[in-house]
């Protein structure tokens, strides 16, 4: 009887242990860095992308980090590649690159977000004074983010591309964001991945063209 009890309890323990540790496949061990990445795009459904002809792009990339209150400007090899790839993609969609002083229709801002240590919410438009509307020729203006934007919990490195409508400023020099791409996952800050990530973001935005 005692032997049976021992046998039964060891079987029960084994079964319980097996149930909850299982023999399941771990998705995180089964994916490549490319498969780990997600590309999110948003756009203002009211915007008429065919009405824009020219664009200007920032000459360095803003880096936001939770370790400091203000953002910094950077121009690493990654940043240069990012500027080059986004410029080429915009041109392929029919937009002409001009200097920011030549009254471009669209402004393109690039940001790297580094919150490797804590979860904080990313507040879109928090540029820390680097790319304030004055940069684009609208001093005193503010950024306007249409309600379709969502604040994502940030806990890792991300890259964002934002397109602003400079052609139609709102009241009080308010500038509307018309398109945003956000890259999250492993390898987002790796230079050799930039061109495929830019390609994917534009491929899933067929409306972003003036042709």
């Amino acid at each position, binding site marked *: 009887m005692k032997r049976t009890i021992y046998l039964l309890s060891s079987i029960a323990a084994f079964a319980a242990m097996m149930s909850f540790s299982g023999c399941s*496949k771990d*998705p995180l061990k089964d994916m490549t860095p490319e498969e780990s990445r*997600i590309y999110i*795009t948003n756009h203002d459904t009211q915007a008429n992308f065919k009405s824009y002809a020219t664009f200007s792009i920032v000459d360095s990339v803003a880096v936001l980090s939770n370790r400091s209150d203000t953002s910094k400007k950077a121009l690493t090899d990654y940043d240069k590649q990012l500027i080059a790839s986004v410029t080429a993609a915009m041109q392929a969609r029919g937009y002409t690159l001009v200097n920011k002083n030549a009254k471009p229709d669209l402004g393109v801002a690039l940001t790297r977000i580094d919150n490797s240590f804590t979860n904080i919410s990313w507040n879109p438009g928090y540029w820390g004074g680097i790319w304030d509307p004055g940069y684009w020729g609208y001093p005193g203006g503010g950024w306007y983010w249409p309600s*379709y934007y969502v604040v994502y919990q940030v806990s890792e490195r991300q890259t964002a591309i934002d397109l602003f409508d400079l052609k139609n400023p709102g009241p009080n020099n308010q500038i509307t964001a018309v398109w*945003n791409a956000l890259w999250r996952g492993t390898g987002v800050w790796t230079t050799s991945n930039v061109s495929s990530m830019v390609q994917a973001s534009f491929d899933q935005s067929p409306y972003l063209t003036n042709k």
Partner: protein
Amino acid sequence: MKKIKYWMLMFASCFAAQAVSAQVRPPLSFDINYSVASPLSSLKDYSNKTSFRGWSAGLQYMLNDQLSVGLRTGFQDFYEKVPRAVYPDKLGDVSAVQTRTLRVVPIQATVGWAFTKPDKAIIPYANVGVGVANMDYEKYWGQFVESDNSWQFLVTPEIGINVPFGKASPLMFNANVRYNYSPYKMGDITNYQSLQYSAGLKFHIN
């Protein structure tokens, strides 16, 4: 004299008990099976692949030669990785490689009916398990996961066969088919239905 009478009574009752429980094999058994499960209906829409990662284990007690009751647990892991696609969402368009998983751990009480007496060479039976299952849902978008864990009602009718290794052998080969149903709702899953095929061993223990 009283002592002798007492011992004789003990002896006689032992024999009597022996006669009553003169069964082919002891009533208590433990079974363990390997399981393969195919998703059905909305579960198939969520995760289309057959699960080859599963097992089932239980205890059964024969109340008589044909009726038994028992307890059972187990595990089944559904897993499908979907190639990169763009998913339009109210939050925007998300390009991702989705990995859709569901891990199910049932805990059920069972009632079984054997269609033949226990001394036969093949014992077909029907069984129904009623209880709960732990549903561990994880849907990955790239490396980012949406997850939920809950306990749901689960009912499982079953038919199968037990094949003893010898006429009175306590060891039997078991094979069965189960239909699992749970009114579980999560994401694309509107109810949990699967067809589970198992094979393994059953030991009668004393």
